[in-house]
C-alpha cells in the first residue's frame, strides 16, 4: 500500500535579511530611525579623530557664540560654548563616549543577565530562589543613589560607569530570560529533544536560546535608550564622565549655568539625546513586531500595499 502524499503549495520563503529589509521599508518611522542610528554610529566611530582637535581648541573671542551664524563654517552652526568651542563639533565628538558607555553597559548586563536567567530557569529550585532573591535585592536598590555613592567612592571613569550601570540593569534580562526559559522548557519541541537524548547544553543553545533571543534583542534596544539617559543623568550630576572627556549629558550640565543668556549650550546636546533615544524606541517597537512570527504579517502586509 502506498501512502498518498498530501500535496499543498508550499509558499516560497525569502532570505532573512531580505525579509527584514522589506519589513523595515514598510515602516517608514523605523526606517528613518534605523538610518539615523547608522549615521550616529558612524559618527561615533570617526568623530574623535575627525574633529577632536577642533572640539577642544578654546577660542575666547567666540565665547557663547549664538547659533545659526551661516557666515562661518558648518561646525559653528550650532553656536559655541563658554570657552568658544564649536558645539556641533563637540556633539559629534561626544557621541563616542555616550554610545560606548551605553553599549558597554547593555552588552555586559545582557550577557550576565541572560546567563544567570538560563541558569535560574534550568537549575534546582534552591539555586533558582537564590538568584531570584538577588535580583529582587538589586531591583529594590535605589539604583541611582547607589550609583552616586559607588562612583563617588570608586572615582568616576568610563569603566566604573559601565560597571555600575550594568549591575543595575542585570535583573531586567535575568527575569525576562528566566520567565521565558521556564515556559519554553515545557514546550513540546524541548521535550522531543529530551526524548532523543539531547544534553542540557544542546537544549539550551540549540532550542531555547534562539527562541528567547528576539525578545532579548528588543529589550536590549529599549534598554540602550534607558542606559543612555541614566549615564547622562549621572554625568549631569557631575559624577559620571569627567572633563576633559565629554558626553552629551555632561554638555547639558556645562550649559546649565549659562541658561539665561546662552540657552543653546544645553539645548543641542539635549536634542541629540532625544533623537537617539527616540530612534531606539521606534526601532525597538518595530523589532517587537518584526521578530514575532505571529505579528509579522502586519508589516509584511503594509509592505505589499506600499508597493
Amino acid at each position, binding site marked *: 500500500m502506498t501512502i498518498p502524499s498530501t500535496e499543498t503549495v508550499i509558499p516560497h520563503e525569502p532570505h532573512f535579511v531580505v525579509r527584514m529589509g522589506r519589513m523595515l521599508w514598510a515602516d517608514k518611522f523605523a526606517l528613518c530611525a534605523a538610518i539615523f542610528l547608522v549615521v550616529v554610529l558612524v559618527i561615533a566611530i570617526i568623530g574623535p579623530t575627525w574633529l577632536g582637535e577642533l572640539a577642544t581648541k578654546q577660542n575666547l573671542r567666540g565665547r557663547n557664540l549664538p547659533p545659526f551664524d551661516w557666515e562661518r563654517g558648518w561646525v559653528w552652526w550650532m553656536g559655541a560654548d563658554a570657552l568658544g568651542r564649536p558645539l556641533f563639533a563637540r556633539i559629534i565628538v561626544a557621541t563616542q563616549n555616550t554610545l560606548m558607555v551605553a553599549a558597554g553597559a547593555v552588552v555586559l548586563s545582557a550577557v550576565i543577565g541572560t546567563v544567570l536567567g538560563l541558569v535560574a530557569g534550568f537549575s534546582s529550585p534552591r539555586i533558582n530562589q537564590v538568584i531570584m532573591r538577588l535580583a529582587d535585592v538589586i531591583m529594590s536598590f535605589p539604583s541611582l543613589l547607589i550609583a552616586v555613592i559607588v562612583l563617588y567612592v570608586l572615582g568616576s571613569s568610563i569603566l566604573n560607569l559601565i560597571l555600575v550601570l550594568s549591575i543595575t540593569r542585570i535583573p531586567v534580562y535575568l527575569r525576562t530570560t528566566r520567565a521565558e526559559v521556564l515556559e519554553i522548557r515545557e514546550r513540546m519541541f524541548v521535550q*522531543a529533544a529530551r526524548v532523543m537524548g539531547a544534553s542540557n547544553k544542546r537544549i539550551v543553545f540549540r532550542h531555547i536560546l534562539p527562541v528567547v533571543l528576539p525578545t532579548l534583542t528588543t529589550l536590549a534596544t529599549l534598554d540602550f535608550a534607558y542606559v543612555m539617559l541614566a549615564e547622562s543623568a549621572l554625568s549631569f550630576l557631575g559624577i559620571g564622565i569627567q572633563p576633559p572627556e565629554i558626553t552629551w549629558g555632561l554638555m547639558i550640565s556645562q550649559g546649565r549655568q549659562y541658561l539665561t543668556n546662552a540657552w543653546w549650550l544645553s539645548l543641542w546636546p539635549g536634542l541629540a539625546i532625544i533623537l537617539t533615544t527616540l530612534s531606539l524606541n521606534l526601532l525597538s517597537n518595530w523589532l517587537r513586531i518584526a521578530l514575532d512570527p505571529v505579528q509579522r504579517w502586519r508589516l509584511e*502586509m503594509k509592505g505589499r500595499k506600499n508597493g
Partner: protein
Amino acid sequence: MADHLLEVRNLSVEFHTAAGVVHAVRDISYYLDRGETLAILGESGSGKSVSSSAIMNLIDMPPGRISSGQILLDGIDLMTMSPQARREVNGRRIAMIFQDPLSHLNPVYTVGWQIREALTTHGSSTAEAASEALRLLRRVGIPDPEPSMGKYPHEFSGGQRQRVMIAMALALRPDLLIADEPTTALDVTVQAEVLALLKELQRETGMAVLIITHDLGVVSEIADRVVVMEKGELVEAGTVREVYKNPRHPYTRKLIAAAPGKGEMHQPDAAGAPVLSVGDVRKSYGGFEALKGVSFDLMAGETMAIVGESGSGKSTLARVLLRLDEPDAGSALWKGRDLFQLSPADLYKLRRDLQMVFQDPTQSLNPRMTVFQLVSEAWVIHPGIVPKAKWRERVAELLIQVGLQPDHMPRYPHQFSGGQRQRIAIARALALEPQLIICDEAVSALDVSVQAQVIALLDKLRREMGIAFIFIAHDLPVVRDFADHVMVMQKGKVVEQGTVREIFGSPRQEYTRALLAAGLDPDPDVQAANRAARLARAS
C-alpha cells in the same frame, strides 16, 4: 421567504492577509427554522465558523470584509441595522457558545457576575438578574449553584465551564443558539452529557440551534439537517440521514469514508515474550496521585492502546516511561533492564530504542529548524548511526517513507499543513531506528481525513519494520482500527485490559461500557439506536 428564522444568502467574506486576499467563505446560503438544529460540518480551514461570526458581528474589519450577501433574521437584514440595534440582537435573540470555554469566560470575574451581566445588559434589574442567574446555574446542572455563583471560571472543570457558558447564553431565552465546536475539548462522556443538555433545553425553549463541528458523530447525534463546507464553499446540504446515506459530493464521501472505527479489528498472536514489562508504576505530583500502580506487558511489534479520559494518568504514564518525569515507584523492564534504574549514560544509549510522537506537531517541532535539521538532529545527538556524508541521502529516504518529498528538506515546519508536520515528527522518530514508539494523542489534533492517513502510515511502519507502539488516545474508534491490545485507564488505575476484540466486543467493566456507549457513531440510525439503548439503561 420570511418564514425562516434565519437565512444566510449568498454570503462572501474575505480576509486581507500577508499572503493576499483569502476568501474565507464564498457565496454560501443556508437557512434555519424555529426549533430546528442545523449543523455546519467542515474540517480546519473550511471556513465553517466564518458565517456564524458574521451573524454575530464578530468579524474584525479590517482585516475582514463582508463582500456580499445578506443575513436575514425574521426577514430583516442584520447587516443594514444600526450598530445599536445589532447589539440588541446579540444575547437577546441570538446567543453563542464557543469551544474552549476557559478562554471565552473572563478569568477575573465570577461566573455569577458574568451570567448576571448577560441579563442586566439587556435591561434586567440587578435583583432579578441575581435570582435568574441562580435558576440558570441550577438548570444547567452545576452542583451547589449558590456557592458556585461566587466562583471563578478556573475553579470549574471543562464540562462545567461549558454548562456555565450555556447558562449565560440562554439567560434571555434567545430564538437562536449558535454553538461553535461546543464539545471538542471535552471527554466523550462529558460531551454526551453536554449535547443531551443542549437537546433538553432546545425542547424546553423551542429555540433553533446552529452547531458548528468537524465531528460526524456530533452531527448524527444532535442535528436535523447538515451543510458540508470545504475550502470556503458549501458543497452539500440536506437532512443528516440523506447526506450520510447518499452523499453526492466527492468531498462528503471522502469525509464519511475517513470516519474511523469501521475497519477489521486486529487479532494479535498469542505467543511471544514481552519486550516491555511494566510493573506497579506510581507517580504523584504534590498530593495528587496521577498513577496508582499501573502494570502491563507489551509484545514486540505490537500495538498497545491506552485509552482514558483527562485525568486518567495516560499521558503521565508516557512521560514516566520515557523518564521525562521520574516515577515514585515501580519498574519497567525493557529487554530485561529496568528503565527506571538506568544511569544517565545508559539511559542516553537506550533513548535510541524508545521514541515518542507528540500530540501537536505544531508545538513538537522547533519552529526555527528546517526539516533537514529536525530529522538529522537525532544523528548529532547519537553519532554513529549514520555517517555524516550520508545524512542528506538518509533524510530523503525517511521523508519518502513517511509520504513527504526530499525537496521538503530546506523548509520550515510552519510551511506545512498539520498532517504533513506530524509526518515530519514521525520521520524524526524513525531516524533513530527505534523499536518502540510512544504516540501521545498523536492524531487527535488532526482532521479526520488526515487522521486516517497518519494511522495508515503508522500501521505500515509496524508491519514493515516490526516497531512496537504504545498508542495513547481518548478517541475509541481510532484505537479500534489500529490497536492489538487495549488498556482502559481511569483516575490513575487500570480498569480493564484485553485484546481489541475483547474490549470492543465484550467489555467486562461498567466504565469501559460507559466509555463505549458515550462514543458517537457517524451513522444517524446507529446513533439513534445507541441513544435509545442508553436511555433505556439509564431509566
